[in-house]
């Protein structure tokens, strides 16, 4: 039972890792209700969300938000602890796309990074509540525990020079010395 659910998780994580690179190809044939492998988001929404998250935590020497699984984190929570934000995400992602199409005539995910940044900055101005939500959730997904689907392979903790698992303290003590019962 336990090992069964664990292997299902690994399968899913591997799939998602592959899905970022393959996302564009998969998306060609999809429609607005296709969820692909997402739990709440449609494939289209996931592309918009990934583009926004990647401006909030962009790539440099260390991975961008989507490479670290942030959209996966948000997607999971939108049918769990963040169910109450489902409508905000539906509306907010739609508004981000509307901004992108009105300003550049193309969907957000297909724009070059500089134009994506412009749209995300406009989103922060025009829809501050939704943007604050995505910003906070992106930070949680990037800097929080890998157990929730974000911070894949603890990339952000490695970036900060912190050990994973986060237990340097334990290494300094030999618990086998009989100190502990």
């Amino acid at each position: 039972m336990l090992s069964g659910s664990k292997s299902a998780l690994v399968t899913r994580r591997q799939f998602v890792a592959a899905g970022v690179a393959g996302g564009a190809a998969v998306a060609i044939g999809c429609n607005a209700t296709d969820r692909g492998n997402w739990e709440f988001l449609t494939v289209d929404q996931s592309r918009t969300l990934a583009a926004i998250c990647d401006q909030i935590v962009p790539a440099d020497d260390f991975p961008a938000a989507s490479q670290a699984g942030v959209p996966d984190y948000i997607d999971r929570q939108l049918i769990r602890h963040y169910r109450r934000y489902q409508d905000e995400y539906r509306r907010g992602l739609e508004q981000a796309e509307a901004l992108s199409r009105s300003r550049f005539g193309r969907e957000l995910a297909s724009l070059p990074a500089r134009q994506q940044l412009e749209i995300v900055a406009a989103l922060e101005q025009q829809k501050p509540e939704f943007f604050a939500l995505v910003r906070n959730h992106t930070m949680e997904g990037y800097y929080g525990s890998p157990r929730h689907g974000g911070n894949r392979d603890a990339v952000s903790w490695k970036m900060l020079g912190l050990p994973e698992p986060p237990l340097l303290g334990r290494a300094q003590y030999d618990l086998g010395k009989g100190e502990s019962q």
Partner: protein
Amino acid sequence: MKRVNAVVVGAGAAGGIVAKELAVAGLSVVLLERGKWYTAADCRKDDLRNQRTTVLGNAFGPEDEGTPRVWVDAQGATHTVLASEGGYNNNAACVGGGTLSYGAQAWRYMPQDFRMRSTYGAPAGSSLEDWPISYDDLEPFYEQAEYEIGVSGDDSGTPFRGPRRRPLPMPPLPPGREFSVLEPAAKRLGLHPFHIPMARNSVPYNGRGPCMRCRWCVGFACEVDAKNGSQNTVIPVALNTGNCELRTGCMAKEILTDERGRARGVAYFDERGRLREQWSDIVVVSGCATESARLLLNSTSGLFPYGLGNRYDQVGRHLQGHHYTGALGYFDFETYDDIGPGATIAISDYNHGTPDLCGGGMLANEFIRLPIHMVDRLPPGTPRWGLAHKQAMRHWHKRTIVIMGPTQQIPTADARVTVDPAVRDKWGLPVCRFSGNVHPHTFEIGEVQARRAEAWLKEAGAIHTSLMAGKPTIVSAGQHQAGTCRMGNDPRTSVVNKTCQVHDVDNLFVIDSSVHVTNGGFNPVLTIMAVAYYASAALVREWKGTGFRS
């Protein structure tokens, strides 16, 4: 169900001690706890779902579903909040209560903390008052708490503390890097830094091993069970007497009274939601300041139309916690060594004695810095997102020290818990409703404390600093909540007498932070524990068998 001598409602810091003291004295006890019994295996090290950072919920209760509360803002608008949201003023709901996952700072209040009105006079509009008991009354019980629960540390470096007969039972943990940065700086400023007393094993104690020094402490259950709460000390002792039965998943509905106005037991919903009645000779309410007040207010009857102990409209008033202020310091060298458990060094030079200020509080280095906490603590002017934010995270995460402390709040009668007239929880019970705020002088003290923290950081070499000194628009009761069933000699201005007995129901007791008249400038748990030992000792002394009457 079999009638017992005592029902204790709430298995937290105080309730666990009361259950143990009564059970050891030979009374039959039922200990009711609405939450579960977690163990060291439930640590989980989940930085998004623990008892301190709750964006994905409270790890140790209550859950979000069906447990709302309401708060009323300064404009009179009401807000319904979830248990994992800030305005909820949550502590915890589990065996051990807050002590399962707390940071475990185990402070004694100072003698002046029990005599705030005599020391300073009451600011206009405040309800600042003296306790009816003194530091000296509690001193033996502080000691009992330190030895039975287990406290490490060394407060011999400060003259700003009450006298103690015995030193702490365990030495402090070896100092970390922040200690070595902050200690000489404090001494250069003429201050008296010392090792914080902690309810945490630094050496093997009580049959359990020492702290392994991870950084995942406050908010988490201890993975190696080195943190000492009621769940791994007094509650097992209580159960081992054979006189105490712990019932988890049980939510108290009301305290039952008879036609003569005496308590006759507790009605509660068991873990399957069935309404049960447990009859008893005495009832002890130990649910924490918010929930204890709620239970008394929800216990209405013909003789007590406004709830128990509430004849003079005192239950729920003087709600207080601590006003946390301090400063962030940014350094050009690494100050973070990733060695726990967290706060290590404190000063109590500023708790009392500043002209024109009614008190103050201790200052200490911060307890926890996980990456998720640093996201909103970067130097002022840092963009809140984007490449610059990411790079600032990288640069500052290990080069920051926070000093902050619990400014003692100046209470008011209007800061209070009532029960909401409309909102019900999943058991159908009226929920806590918060309104009012502490006295504004609190914020003046807090601001001075923040500047003192900043000065300490600058002396330690901080190249930038920023102050943390807000003015919350609602009382910040939180995990340090206190004051709602004030202890006093006058039934018209207090709820319990000086041994925690409700003034007009002689077999009903409130023993927890609710009885604190004022809440000190320190984390309150050791005082909660000392009061629990003290009140239990009085109760056992008075106990003359079934049909208790004093």
